[in-house]
């Protein structure tokens, strides 16, 4: 088998082709779809999910999962509001503290997973409830509003004609690609996902890597919370609920194996964009939201089926 065909049957390549097909199909359906304004706007809308999907790719590559990201997002949003309005801190300090809280929440996840060896699914299922509960308890159902104008720049403003948060997302995504692909940290991540014991026996810092990944997941979830609050200019304790399923869908659609050891950030990005343009394009073509949900489910199955089918023809 030539190198070319090997690259072509990679899941990411198939997904890329699928993406282009959908793009063309949607563009031919509606002339408002393929405009810079619409595409940039879609990018703005998907930033929070996209941000969280980057560390989630790492988490899933190690063979783990993090279900608590939506709850961390909610908790950090609430804390931002509480620090700023109820404690009267300056907004930048509140942002810093809220980021720190998210990082701590992720660190706690990492500790439960590494030190106490609780399977990640269960650990984060528990913290999913715990962090959301804290958000509700702390907020006492009150929402915080009236953020200053400069804060809105992050979520609603532009920089050089491109939505501000997209710069942030691009930075995080580039970092994610770089770290996973080129650094020892990335290598260790793959090694853990493929054979954790062998990684341990090779002197790779298994625990530290996992701890860092879950912590990063918490930090980025907090970052997403800040972006989100800035975009909607209010904080509520139910923010981000259910976002974990969207994030995981994007990551597995992007070809990351749920069993670990395989996956790329590029794939996640394609998966994410595919989901977003399906939602947007179908909506513009007059398909209702519930119909779109059905289509996305079907696309997920079809994408995995095709890549399963093709992988039978490859030698590995």
């Amino acid at each position, binding site marked *: 088998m030539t190198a070319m065909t090997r690259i072509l049957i990679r899941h990411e390549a198939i997904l890329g082709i699928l993406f282009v097909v959908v793009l063309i199909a949607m563009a031919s359906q509606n002339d408002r779809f393929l405009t810079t304004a619409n595409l940039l706007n879609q990018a703005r809308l998907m930033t929070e999910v996209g941000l969280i999907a980057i560390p989630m790719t790492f988490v899933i590559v190690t063979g783990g999962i993090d279900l608590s990201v939506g709850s961390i997002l909610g908790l950090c949003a609430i804390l931002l509001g509480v620090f700023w309005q109820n404690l009267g801190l300056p907004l930048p300090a509140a942002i810093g503290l809220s980021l720190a809280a998210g990082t701590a929440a992720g660190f706690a996840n990492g500790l439960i997973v590494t030190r106490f060896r609780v399977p990640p699914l269960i650990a984060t299922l528990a913290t999913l409830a715990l962090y959301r509960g804290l958000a509700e308890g702390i907020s006492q159902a009150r929402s915080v509003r009236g953020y200053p104008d400069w804060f809105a720049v992050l979520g609603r403003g532009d920089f050089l004609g491109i939505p501000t948060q997209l710069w942030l997302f691009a930075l995080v995504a580039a970092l994610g690609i770089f770290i996973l692909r080129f*650094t020892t940290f990335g*290598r260790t991540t793959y090694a853990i996902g493929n054979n954790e*014991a*062998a*990684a341990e026996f*090779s*002197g790779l810092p298994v625990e530290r890597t996992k701890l860092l990944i879950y912590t990063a997941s918490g930090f980025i979830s907090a970052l997403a919370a800040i972006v989100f609050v800035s975009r909607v200019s209010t904080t509520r304790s139910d923010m981000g609920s259910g976002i974990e399923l969207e994030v995981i869908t994007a990551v597995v659609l992007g070809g990351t194996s749920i069993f670990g050891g395989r996956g790329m950030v590029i794939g996640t990005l394609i998966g994410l964009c595919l989901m977003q343009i399906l939602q947007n394009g179908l909506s513009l073509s007059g398909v209702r939201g519930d119909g779109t949900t059905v289509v996305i489910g079907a696309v997920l199955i079809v994408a995995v089926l095709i890549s399963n089918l093709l992988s039978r023809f490859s*030698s*590995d």
Partner: protein
Amino acid sequence: MTPILELKNISKAFGPVKVLTGVDFDLRPGEVHALMGENGAGKSTMIRIAAGDHRAEEGEIRLDGKPRRFAGPREAQGEGIIVVHQELLLFPALSVAENVFLGHQPKTAAGLVDWGRMRREARDLLDRLDCPNLDVDQRVSRLSVADRQRVEIARALSRNARVLIMDEPTAALAEADVRRLLEVVRRLRSEGVAIVYVSHRMNEIFEIADRVTVLRDGVSVGTRPIAEVTEASLVSMMVGRDIHQLFPKEDIPRGEKRLELRGVSLAGVVEDISFDLHAGEILGIAGLVGSGRTELAQTIFGVTPATSGEILVDGKPQKIASVREAIDAGIAYVPEDRGSHGIIRAQPLRENVSMAILDRLTKFSVVDTGREQSLATDAIKRFSIRARDARQRVGQLSGGNQQKVVLAKWLATEPKILILDEPTRGVDVGAKTEIHRLMGELAKKGLAILMISSELPEVLGMSDRVLVMREGRLSAIVDRKDASPAAVGAAMMQGRREPARAGAAR
């Protein structure tokens, strides 16, 4: 006499890889038919075809002279063809009794699983294998490799086999267990069961087999009565050339002291171990399975850090609390369980070889893939690894070549001290001699080597000194000139408690 089972002109390929080509094989009732060949010769594949696990592309299977096709393992089992699998196909989460009887549990009149009878019958079977200490209610995940092997054998015995196929049943067993197993095999043979026996151990073959068939590169080289072959002729049949020197041990002057252990213990497993190891020396560790050799090695290597005692490297006390610290101190460990501790099957050879020295191959924590590539190509050349290129996945290589990859990975750390745990387990004769030759070379370059092996000939053939362990303690250190099978064997067994009789333990 018509053969009970016959394979005729069997061919099988996995994708583009041809594994078996026109193999013939026949098995008569009441015989032990040994199957031999290098790693990857196709023995296990042939067995799986006979057991209905794989489907052959060409050829036919005859049972009692009549052609048969098996749709799956279940059908073959229905005909009394039972396999003890090489890779120990057990259910870790389930109990011993259940593992033995899964798929054919005893039933009550109402057709329900009869747990009481199942446990009793499992007990009886294990008693027949002489392992009264094995608790039938224990979860298999808690058993040692040797005990798992016993469970696997008990499982095969629990089905009334007409044809019993054993794929390297003794790979994880020590001498005494091997004796008992051979006893059972003889008894089954006398009951008329036809047995296929796969092993890389010559002495077992000569002890038990009636006939032997040799596979080489997926082709049957021939079938001979055991009386017509010698060890040397078998080896040359297998590898296609003569091997003159199985243990190419050279005498190397002993260098300075590299490693010293003073009263090292790992609570409950390894007690009070003291010895020293010098540059250029190969120190063998012998002992029964479960005597704590692997634990000792892993303690030195920081996997399970010592709970007391002192480890000195180059004369200086060294704290070893993690694998990283051990590597930094110049220690390398080639683990016994290659699949789960040595390699990452899904990753390319290149990334496996560089895994232990990743931090040295980086600039600002970015992996220098150029250097990595040349490291890997060097390794392929130096160890003559049979691989397509450095990008081939390690899982696709044969066992012996995988072992070489692990060796290459650890030698890349440029260690001063190399610990080899069962370096040739499940490795065929050809690859084995190559690994032995390599060990000699390394010692000559001044490496201090600690080698754990369950094969007595290997320990005796390769070591300058032999360290014998028993029940987690050091029972003897024997010099090369004094090391005879009798002396070492005695130190291994000495004072060993006789296993209590069946009933008493419960």
